[in-house]
């Protein structure tokens, strides 16, 4: 990625973070260009969530630099009040974002717009607890989108969804990219990364091992003498080769 060519929406340089002496991030570099869709892929415990939460400004890195404006973060598990309705949840966060100066849009108008966007207008008065996982994730993401961010950070957005729900969710997310919002999402599903991301970043043990397209990943594996074939096999071989 050439910063001269493309405007960066978000960048992290040499970020480290340790928990109780254990290194969760070990000097990782990461960047997202405007309007780009990037997948962060890696095994559990690789440091994906830690990286995303530092990018979102929720936690502080031990060292390194982070830059980016208009970053919205959507937590892995739906951060919603299950006893409140869809509309009540949206209205609460609309008010809070409005009061925090993140948006000038009137909360009620914002809620109507989000209900439209998520396609949940007819479920507006249902309690969130009664919605399917996919619909809960929509509301979850919608709250992240309220302030019109330039980058949306999604932490494992499709966990627990069946393939049909997952496809509908991505249809919804990618329609946003069309409007210029960059998306960085974490996953440990290589197929999801290949299907929806323009670029894949492989993370393991707090370090970035690779950045490029799915084809480039495949090529990198084969160049190293690894097996050719489907991307999942390549990915696992790639990790094994580097001792993960």
């Amino acid at each position: 990625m050439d910063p001269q060519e493309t405007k960066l929406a978000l960048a992290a340089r040499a970020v480290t973070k340790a928990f109780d002496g254990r290194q969760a991030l070990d000097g990782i570099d990461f960047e997202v260009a405007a309007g780009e869709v990037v997948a962060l892929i890696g095994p559990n415990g690789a440091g994906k969530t830690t990286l995303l939460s530092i990018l979102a400004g929720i936690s502080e890195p031990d060292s390194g630099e982070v830059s980016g404006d208009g970053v919205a973060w959507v937590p892995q598990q739906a951060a919603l009040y299950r006893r409140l309705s869809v509309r009540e949840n949206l209205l609460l966060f609309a008010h809070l974002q409005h009061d925090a100066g993140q948006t000038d849009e009137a909360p009620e108008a914002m809620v109507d717009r989000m209900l439209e966007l998520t396609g949940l207008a007819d479920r507006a008065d249902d309690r969130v607890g009664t919605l399917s996982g996919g619909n809960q994730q929509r509301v979850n993401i919608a709250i992240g989108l309220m302030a019109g961010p330039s980058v949306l950070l999604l932490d494992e957005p499709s966990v627990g969804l069946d393939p049909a729900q997952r496809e509908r969710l991505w249809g919804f997310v990618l329609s946003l990219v069309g409007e210029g919002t960059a998306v960085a999402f974490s996953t440990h599903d290589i197929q999801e990364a290949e299907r929806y991301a323009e670029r894949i970043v492989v993370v393991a043990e707090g370090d970035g091992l690779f950045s490029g397209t799915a084809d480039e990943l495949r090529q990198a594996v084969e160049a190293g003498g690894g097996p050719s074939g489907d991307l999942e096999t390549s990915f696992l071989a790639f990790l094994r080769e580097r001792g993960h």
Partner: protein
Amino acid sequence: MRWLLLKDLQILKRSPLQLTLLVLYPIVIALLVGFAMTRGSEDPTVALYNAMPAGESLGFGGEEVDGNEIRDQLCDRVDCVDADSTAEAKEMVESGEATAAVIVPEDLGEKIRSLASLTPQSPEIQIIVNGSDAVENRVTDDRIESMLGEANLLLAKRLSEGAKQYLDLILKGGQFDLLGQQIEVLGLQKSEQILKKIEPKLPPGTDKEQLQRAVRFAHLATDNLDLAGPLLTAITEPIKADKVEVGDQAPSLDTFAIGVTVAFALMFVTVLLVAGSLALEKEENAFTRLTAGLVSRIQILVGKVGLGTVVGFAVSLILMVGLGLFVGIEWGRTPYWLLALIFGAAAFSAAGAALGAAAREVRAATLAAVMICLPVALLSLVPDDAVGPAIETAINLVSALFPFRPALDAITGGLEISGPNVWLPLLHLAILTTAYSLLARLALRRF
């Protein structure tokens, strides 16, 4: 922040179990305690066996105390049931038909009369109580004790009046009835006059000096014995005045019962609500989202403590008014106990917030709340004289660290002017509110 508070109230409205608890708990408690207290203040039943011959007068020194007067006094304070023998009275107590029995022995009148004689005996009344009902026993004991006190007072007054008549007789002289015989008593005043008249007729010498001494004595004795009369009355009067005053005031047992009831309800409702509500923020994952640039941790904390204070205050106010239907609450002191409720609610809220922040899970927070509240509150109720000094110090320390005891003190002090000072426990509660809020803020770092 009002959106957070509004949201919490909305969630509360949708939580049927919690809501039922919040609404029903104070009402049910108020009804239960109210009924228990009004029942407790009903007159206990006392079996009375009067072995004294009917209509016997307890007269002495010309003053009469009818045996029926004592009966009237007793039955004025308790419900009397007549028994025909000591055995029957005892049986009534054993069967629970009566909470106590009073046996008036045959010789009571005789013994009372003996008080005015040269060989006084102490008159005794036998009281039988059932040991199994501690609370009712206490009520009965109190009644009988106050009845005996008044009976004693009545006797003392009669005795002193009798004594005054004797004094008058000695002073002024007159007729005195002894075993049916009329005896003429000369009296000191007359003696003095007679002696004075004789004195000048006597030749000087030892006899004249003796006589002069007798005149001086008669004069002094008349003067001083004149004072003895009012003194005798004075001895009996102040005690009586005291008794009447105590009887008129609202018993502080009621105030204490109200205080304990309200403090318990306030504690449970507030601590459980705030601890659960804060832990819910974590459980619903909302905490990270809220603190990601929307609100500060302090604001969340203040919101929760505010929620607990508002709800706890409302619930305890309902309870207080509910209890007020059954027992006398001094409405003139409303500002004081309102302050106590508000400060108590705030302190319990802060404690709940610290618990919720430490537990991070609704179930764990609820369990911890019950497991901490209950024993500490019960410990706070242990009377000081029931344990040794070392344990007492330990209990006082634990009680001082938790808002229950200061809340109880503030409420009872607010209710009754003769109760504990209100301002000290209010200050204590304010300190606890601050301390627990700081603890909660600290725990939220790792929330």
